[in-house]
């Protein structure tokens, strides 16, 4: 891959070991897709030399939402309420917009109870990498269908799903999300690449990761299952990511490609496997998702990117220093100011 490898002696650019990025032991089921995603987050944070104290982990409720306890022990974590993580993420990032933020949600958490907060978070362009660990079921409550479950899917416990799925990528797109990507938990390389790109994005970056539930949703006929994933996955675009602090330019495979410059100057170098897709083309992205839905397929890769929208902290005209750390003399007006107000009211 096209990023600078961490120094050989087992520490990264800021002197931390891979261990410093670990979390507590997972209590998820063996083989759960969510655990692979945690592993990817650990890897990427290490590789990118992210300062864990300057990152926050946020989640809702669900098996997926438990995972922030299983990575980045040195980062503050907030395991909130079911479906309501987007709002608390919004608040946290208003309080301190200098932090990086990873939000972990499930398909029930985002698509069912949380769809409203999700859409409004995207609309506000809250600077968070928002990962949907999408298995089409409610794992933690034992296997009911979520709103992203395939139409016509049959599960032992839940029966037949007769409702059409909500596509969280499509929802993000129509709510003007500037970074919409999808991947598959069983494809570590792609997940890591997309994660790195997402972490450089200025506003909301949505990463919908198909993450099979081995306990309740791993039937051959579900688009969210491993078996299905491996055989049906259709990689749309692959790309490499070059963080700016890394001055080495690496040779990269030839072929059709498109460059996208990230807000921090980083460049992602797209390699289109499907030469028809340009991730800067909204209409193309809409079409792609719409067609994939009809075919009950999922598209992986960077579906859409647009760096133009201002993030919430920019819209709010926040100062450089985080609001949470402003000193008293900055946030409490003077005695004179109060006196002047009182005069006006007399």
């Amino acid at each position, binding site marked *: 891959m096209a990023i600078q490898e961490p120094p050989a002696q087992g520490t990264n650019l800021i002197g931390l070991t891979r261990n410093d990025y670990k979390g507590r032991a997972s209590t998820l089921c063996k083989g759960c897709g969510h655990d692979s995603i945690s592993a990817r987050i650990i890897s990427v944070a290490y590789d990118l030399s992210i300062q864990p104290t300057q990152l926050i982990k946020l989640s809702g409720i669900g098996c997926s939402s438990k995972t922030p306890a299983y990575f980045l022990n040195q980062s503050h974590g907030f395991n909130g309420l079911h479906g309501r993580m987007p709002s608390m993420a919004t*608040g946290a990032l208003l*309080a301190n917009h200098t932090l990086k933020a990873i939000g972990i949600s499930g398909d029930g958490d985002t698509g069912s109870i949380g769809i409203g907060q999700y859409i409004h978070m995207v609309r506000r362009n809250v600077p968070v990498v928002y990962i949907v660990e999408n298995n089409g079921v409610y794992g933690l409550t034992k296997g009911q269908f979520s709103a992203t479950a395939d139409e016509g899917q049959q599960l032992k416990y839940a029966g037949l799903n007769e409702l059409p799925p909500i596509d969280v990528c499509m929802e993000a797109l129509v709510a003007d999300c500037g970074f919409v990507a999808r991947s598959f938990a069983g494809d570590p390389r792609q997940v890591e690449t997309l994660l790195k790109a997402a972490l450089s994005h200025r506003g909301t970056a949505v990463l919908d990761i198909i993450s099979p539930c081995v306990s309740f949703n791993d039937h051959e006929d579900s688009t969210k299952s491993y078996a299905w994933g491996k055989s049906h996955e259709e990689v749309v675009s692959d790309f490499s990511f070059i963080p700016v602090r890394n001055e080495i330019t690496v040779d990269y495979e030839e072929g059709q490609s498109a460059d996208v410059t990230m807000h921090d100057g980083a460049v992602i170098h797209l390699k289109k496997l499907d030469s028809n897709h340009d991730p800067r083309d909204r209409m193309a992205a809409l079409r792609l998702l719409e067609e994939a839905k009809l075919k009950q397929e999922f598209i992986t890769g960077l579906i859409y990117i647009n760096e133009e929208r201002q993030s919430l902290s920019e819209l709010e005209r926040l100062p450089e220093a985080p609001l949470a750390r402003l000193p008293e003399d900055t946030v409490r007006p003077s005695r004179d100011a109060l006196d002047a107000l009182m005069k006006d009211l007399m």
Partner: protein
Amino acid sequence: MNTTSVRSGPQVTDIEDSPSGVNNFVIVAATINGSGSQTANNCLLRALFKMGIPVTAKNLFPSNIQGLPTWFQIRLSADGYVGRRDTCEVLVAMNRSTAAEDISKVAPGGMVIVPSEWKLAEDRSDLSYYSIPVQQMAKDSGANADLRPYVANMAYVGALVELLGIDVDEIEAALMQHFGGKRKAVDLNFGVVKAAIEYTRANITKTDPFKVERSNKTAGKILINGNEAGAMGAVFGGFTVAAWYPITPSTSLVDALGDYAKLLRADEKTGERTYAIVQAEDEIAALGMVVGAGWAGARAMTSTSGPGLSLMTEYAGYAQFAEVPAVIWDIQRMGPSTGLPTRTAQGDVLMVYYLGHGDTRHDILFPANMEECFEFGWRSFDLAERLQTPVFVLSDLDLGMNLWMSQPFTYPDKPMDRGKVLSAEELAKLGGFHRYEDVDGDGIPYRTIPGTDSPLAAYFTRGSGHNAEAQYTERADEWQANLARLHKKLEHARTLVPAPVLDEVPGAEVGIISYGSNDSAIAEARSMLASRGIQTSYLRLRALPTTAEFQHFLAKYPRHYVVENNFEAQMAKILQTEAPAYAAHLTSVNQCDGLPLTGRWIAQSILEQER
């Protein structure tokens, strides 16, 4: 009939409330909302205030934007009583659809101003009727057609100036202030005022006894409403994040917050702000944002009313259990449910105290006047951060949206208290910390702010079971230990929340207990009772949980009346559980008709019990 109307409270006869003719009566302007009468009414109020006459105003407006009845009630009180009075001596009847009922309620001997255009039968011989060609004056003003209904209101201002003897210069000054000195607007309106004065002088013979006289009783005072006062308090409390969702009657608090913050906390040149105010998509999100911000170290707040509060239930419980500071203003309006959005009540007390499932309990502040709205505006942040918990400020529509006289506000008497927050340096010294450990024996643990530059700073916040180290646990012992510590914290809060205000009278045999906006009516009720030989002592709660003073007060008197503006006698119920030994000594004096309680009704209710 879809008519909106306001009736007085229960018919009371024992306690008379007869006003004198000078500086001591109630003016009611009955108009139609959306017609712009607010300018006229506020100018009147301000002019009287500037004449040194104690005044208070109650604006009774409908939950709609245009076309429905509105009543603006100005009470003048030489004695300085600012509670509602349910009489009306001077009626300005500008709304034809309610005129008959409005006139029927004027006190005998009162006056009524009506538009000449109505050709009204003046069928109450005990009233003085004055008719004014309101529409003609508006036409004559030179205002273009769509502005005419608006300036027409100035005609009754002019009539009142002449009939009551209001200083016309104060009216002009009030208009100047209202229009920010825009001379053209002032002239247009003031022209109508002057025309009405002249018309009245020339055509009307005054036959009623009501008039005003310059006094000195408002010197040094300010005129403000509670939502503005609370917002100002929050700005001086160093709020940094506010998230909200529009709802009457709480919206104007956030509006004022935006105005004051822009004035005092934004860089004029760069536009950079030391705060963020976000209109959320609903109240779940509003409180979610506040909790997220509070967790990340901001002084975060929201403001809402009943329906919004209901939606905040889940996050409120979370914040209390996960120990995240937050300030939540509830500007109470009439419920249940959508209820009457533009009527006042104190109906959320029980709900807020226990807001959340599974054994949640909260700390609540009850401001009773403008100074306390301001003070609790900043102090609530100190408490929330000190106690690491949501602090609710329960105001109401009467406090929040009506104009009140007040002493000027006092600058915060101490620096901001950010509570037990550990810095990177302290962490290094300590070698780490346990997020939910009771180090100091007060139940309050230490926290760190995300972004603290130390590998020892991080902890994991959750609404599920956790031990002192903030780790997930399902152990019965750890669960109990954590709840016990939270309980200790709630007990400790009793020593930190504002103590009640006490007014103990020698020889009193009766205690009155109340809170919030009832204060002014109670002052009046107590003097009415005293004049019948019933001396009362008074304890005004300013917070829940209750403090030691409350228990002492209970012990001193054999009978206590708990006065409140709701149907369920909510505070009385809470007090019964706070002091079971005295539960039977508490009698509720409560009602709930959408209007602020009156001194007369309170006095009458207590009188009935006491004899």
